[in-house]
């Protein structure tokens, strides 16, 4: 049995938690940009673009994130491309998030009521103008609750980066445990920290969903 949990350990865990948030942001921003491209590609008028993006999504969604991480870290190293744990984790998560956000956003775009598409066409707007001025603003509103909900998934998934050695919250816990040998207590604390990060987002997402439901009901009610 090692020593007791002291302030240094907690600071170390805190540092790990900050990196969890940092990695989550990297994944969100990188995956968000890529996801946006994929969402548009999925509804492209060009069949090849649609098929390619659909294949990408199917591929990523059918593979465990851990395998993608191993591929990025050990796989690339084995063929001569040595990457840091941060780069491997960041890239893998970006690919992962891009696929899922792409699907969520594609769904949101396609949920914009058909009359809106037709009205925009009837006003002789070009495809780009239709998207930018009519469809996307509405799609963003629809997409917000599930996107916020997915941020919870991102934060949870960063825990896997620990497996390739990136020192985020989970890895910090393993390191602390190596000196304290109180695994259950340490992981319980870590669980609480994850919960503190994720639960407010979950609640927020649910609140947005309720507000969106009300808003759309008003939208569809007779004038």
């Amino acid at each position, binding site marked *: 049995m090692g020593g007791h949990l002291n302030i240094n350990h907690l600071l170390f865990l805190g540092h790990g938690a900050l990196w969890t948030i940092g990695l989550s942001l990297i994944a969100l921003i990188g995956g968000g940009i890529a996801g946006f491209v994929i969402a548009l590609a999925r509804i492209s008028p060009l069949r090849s673009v649609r098929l390619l993006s659909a294949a990408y999504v*199917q*591929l990523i969604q*059918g*593979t*465990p*994130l*851990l*395998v*993608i991480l*191993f*591929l990025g870290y*050990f*796989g*690339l*190293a*084995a*063929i*001569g491309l040595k990457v840091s744990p941060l780069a491997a984790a960041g890239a893998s998560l970006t690919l992962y998030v891009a696929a899922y956000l792409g699907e969520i956003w594609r769904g949101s775009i396609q949920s914009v009521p058909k009359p809106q598409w037709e009205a925009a066409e009837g006003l002789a707007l070009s495809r780009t103008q239709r998207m930018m001025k009519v469809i996307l603003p509405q799609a963003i509103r629809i997409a917000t609750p599930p996107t916020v909900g997915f941020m*919870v998934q991102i934060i*949870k*998934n960063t*825990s*896997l980066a*620990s*497996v390739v050695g990136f020192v985020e919250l*989970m890895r910090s816990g393993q390191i602390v445990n190596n000196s304290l040998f109180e*695994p*259950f207590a340490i*992981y*319980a604390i*870590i*669980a609480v920290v*994850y*919960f503190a990060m*994720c*639960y407010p987002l*979950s609640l927020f997402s649910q609140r947005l969903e309720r507000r969106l439901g009300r808003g759309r009901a008003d939208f569809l009610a007779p004038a």
Partner: protein
Amino acid sequence: MGIQLDFLAVLERWPSFLGGAVLTLELALFATVLGVLLGTFAAVGRGTHSALIARGCKVYVEAIRNTPLLVQIFLVYFGLASIGLKLSAFTVAVAALTINVGAYTAEIMRAGFEAIPRGQIEAAEGLALSRLQIYWHIILLPAVERVYPALTSQFVLLMLASSVCSQISAEELTAVANYIQSDTYRAFETYIIVAVFYIILSLVMRAGFWGLGLVLFPRRRRLGTAL
């Protein structure tokens, strides 16, 4: 510098891969069956009059949904060890996966329960059915039929998530991959092949659930429409 890829050297190890895939499927199926039971109990518990049980179920669901599976697995693993239970990695993995998928199943089932129109419950009451009979025939069974696609997706996700069990030495597909790549020094090819295995497993599972759905839900089989 040329990148030499040698898939064949890795594919020679296909018996090991197959063994890992079988274990992954076993993990997924055990956890699925137990998770459905647990999730159904939790979903029913959310609706009881007892505030204690209802609150307890909500706490369970929210705790699981807002913490990573990896943390949950370690907690189950070390928790069971600390109370002296020496269980196989497989059993621990099934336990952790069951607890995890139970929470997600509970949410899906609850949505299914709430979609049952009040009128049908009144009609059942008008026919003098007991509360238990109403719950079973009018709420539970149709709810399962209605949310079956969502449940199927959840269980496929569970199978993919089981890769995390490699971290507690369960010898499922990802663990096998780790072993083989360290043995052959061909990490890239190994993980590509394993990814393909997982994709095939997803398809196999989806097909299996689709067939099961046809057997369980005669209405769907005959009419082809969703409830």
